[in-house]
């Protein structure tokens, strides 16, 4: 068990003939992911990396059983690509692309949520990985060892650092999901916590948040009410000045929303210990799991 993906997950890659798409499709295959097809409008009929390329997601789902799609389509067409996958009935859609116009995401997320049976992860995210089974993302698989800690994060590199630290310490990762650094994303911390709570392979959850928005506060409220498994928190950007966008479009403190103080208070209220450094994350996990 694991959450969202496993070794049987059949994956299509939207944008497989592009530079990014081709590079990461190959890396995913090397990591053991079952990539069954690619989609690039206008390039249907080709074969790339040993898999067929289709013009539309619908054609791919007609010829293959598809469990998930990962999208590397450039920003102007990225939200449209996510909608295409969702309407073709792909139940898990991972949107890697960064720089997507915000209104495109507002509309796409609303439409996909209305469909009800599709989970969108991202955009502007590194994707997800269940080590040794399925990598549906752009993370370096080598730093993820299979194990018992669930990891969710708004960042890319902090996720990799944390995964490496947990793997080196012997705990390893059950499933790791980067939810993305944009203000409008398909899946938040709170959406994923119940999946980890119900996953027998996950013994503890590490939640790497950052300044901006109130996803961490919502997650803390959920943890307080519903989680039995231990959760360890982390907040990036504590030293950031107000009103400045720190790289991620979503990492900005506006007025009194998104401050580290608010997030730390919410975690304290939910009895979630918060690490100040990535090394401390491991120590706090050790305190919970031994």
């Amino acid at each position, binding site marked *: 068990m694991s959450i969202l993906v496993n070794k049987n997950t059949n994956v299509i890659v939207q944008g497989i003939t592009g530079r990014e798409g081709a590079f990461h499709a190959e890396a995913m295959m090397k990591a053991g992911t079952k990539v069954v097809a690619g989609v690039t409008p206008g390039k249907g009929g080709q074969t790339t990396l040993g898999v067929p390329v289709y013009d539309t997601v619908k054609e791919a789902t007609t010829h293959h059983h598809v469990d998930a799609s990962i999208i590397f389509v450039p920003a102007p067409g990225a939200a449209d690509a996510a909608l295409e996958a969702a309407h073709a009935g792909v139940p898990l859609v991972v949107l890697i692309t960064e720089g997507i*116009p*915000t209104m*495109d995401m507002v509309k796409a997320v609303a439409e996909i949520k209305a469909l009800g049976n599709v989970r969108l992860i991202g955009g502007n995210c590194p994707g997800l990985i269940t080590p040794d089974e399925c990598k549906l993302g752009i993370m370096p698989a080598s730093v993820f060892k299979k194990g018992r800690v669930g990891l969710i994060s708004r960042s*890319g590199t902090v996720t990799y*650092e944390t995964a490496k630290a947990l793997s080196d310490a012997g705990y390893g990762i059950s499933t790791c999901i980067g939810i993305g650094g944009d203000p409008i994303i398909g899946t938040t911390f709170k959406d994923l916590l119940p999946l980890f709570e119900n996953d027998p392979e996950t013994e503890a959850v590490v939640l790497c948040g950052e300044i901006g928005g109130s996803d961490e506060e919502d997650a803390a409220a959920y943890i307080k009410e519903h989680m039995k498994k231990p959760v360890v928190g982390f907040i990036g950007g504590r*030293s950031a000045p107000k009103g400045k*966008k*720190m790289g991620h479009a979503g990492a900005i403190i506006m007025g009194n929303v998104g401050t580290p103080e608010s997030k730390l208070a919410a975690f304290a209220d939910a009895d979630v210990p918060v690490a100040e450094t990535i090394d401390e994350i491991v120590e706090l996990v050790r305190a919970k799991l031994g």
Partner: protein
Amino acid sequence: MNLHEYQAKDILAKYGIPVPPGKVAFTADEAKQIASEYGDLVVIKAQVHTGGRGKAGGVKLARNPEEAREKAAQILGLNIKGFITKKVLVAKGINIAKEYYAGMILDRVTQRVVLMLSKEGGMDIEEVAATRPYALIKYPINPHTGLRPFEARELVKRAGMEGNLNKLADVLVKLYQAYVGIDASTAEINPLVISDTGEVVAADAKIVLDDNALYRHPDLMPLREFEAEHPLEVEASNYGFSYVKLDGNVGVIGNGAGLVMYTLDLVQRTGGKAANFLDIGGGAKADVVYNALKVVLKDPDVKGVFINIFGGITRADEVAKGVIRAMDEGILTKPVAMRVAGTAEEEAKALLKGRPVYMYPTSVEAAKAIISMTGGAK
């Protein structure tokens, strides 16, 4: 991207929202000329990318053209929170009966554009939200239908706004059309004025554009003012880096926004203060690191540099080569603490042998080292 008030008003006018007649002046004489065209009370307003203009003396009334010239001369050149006033808006005065607030922002919780409406216009809306939340109505707009006139009318009533209901509602409907039409991330009218003759007018406006969507608005791109941004932020963006100037003395270079934020936190936690945020993005090649150093070291505040790179496939020796090039060209003369998680760390150490560049196995150790070399926050 921030727009000036006059640019925001031009856009609102294009979408059919009434704005007071006004023109931009770059000199006091131009201001006088414009004032004489309006022949009556005018308001002269500094056009700078910051708030709090009124308090800083950047907004003044003038009753005749000569007074307009004098007031414009006082405002032009004024330093408002670090922004030098280079132009003023000269707008026809309005006799105000009521001042309201109407704004639209992106709300992460509802994942929609939210209309905010208040009877308490003309003041800082964040303060209204914090101290009198009941005085601020928030309404998430369905992205598939947009804001419809009946919704706008109901909201005007709910906010307790007095004045012509249809005209007020029409402004809200058009504000949303403008918001979507230009891909804004913020669009505010504050104050939304009811004049003594009952006209509804956008007396001040603020628009921030969504940078991600600028590519589809070639007509708005020329509105970007490089001189209004920090010169190093402009230079960094030319290299594809994300850079934010901060007020400490440790230059920071990293890959990935999350890791760079973490690095700033570590610097602060260790007793120092970062001079900047710089994210090089993916692929830490030698020339990328070299260019990043060039940008960071142009900041005279920087006393030392902390390079923090994570990459499963990033080669530490590539990072080292970028550092060495910067040293050999005399750009880099200050201490460097480096931490690179990747391959070829031994090769990197060999390359750096005998140079004042130190590699540390962890971010925490590198942070301690750079703080001791730069003396910490003053």
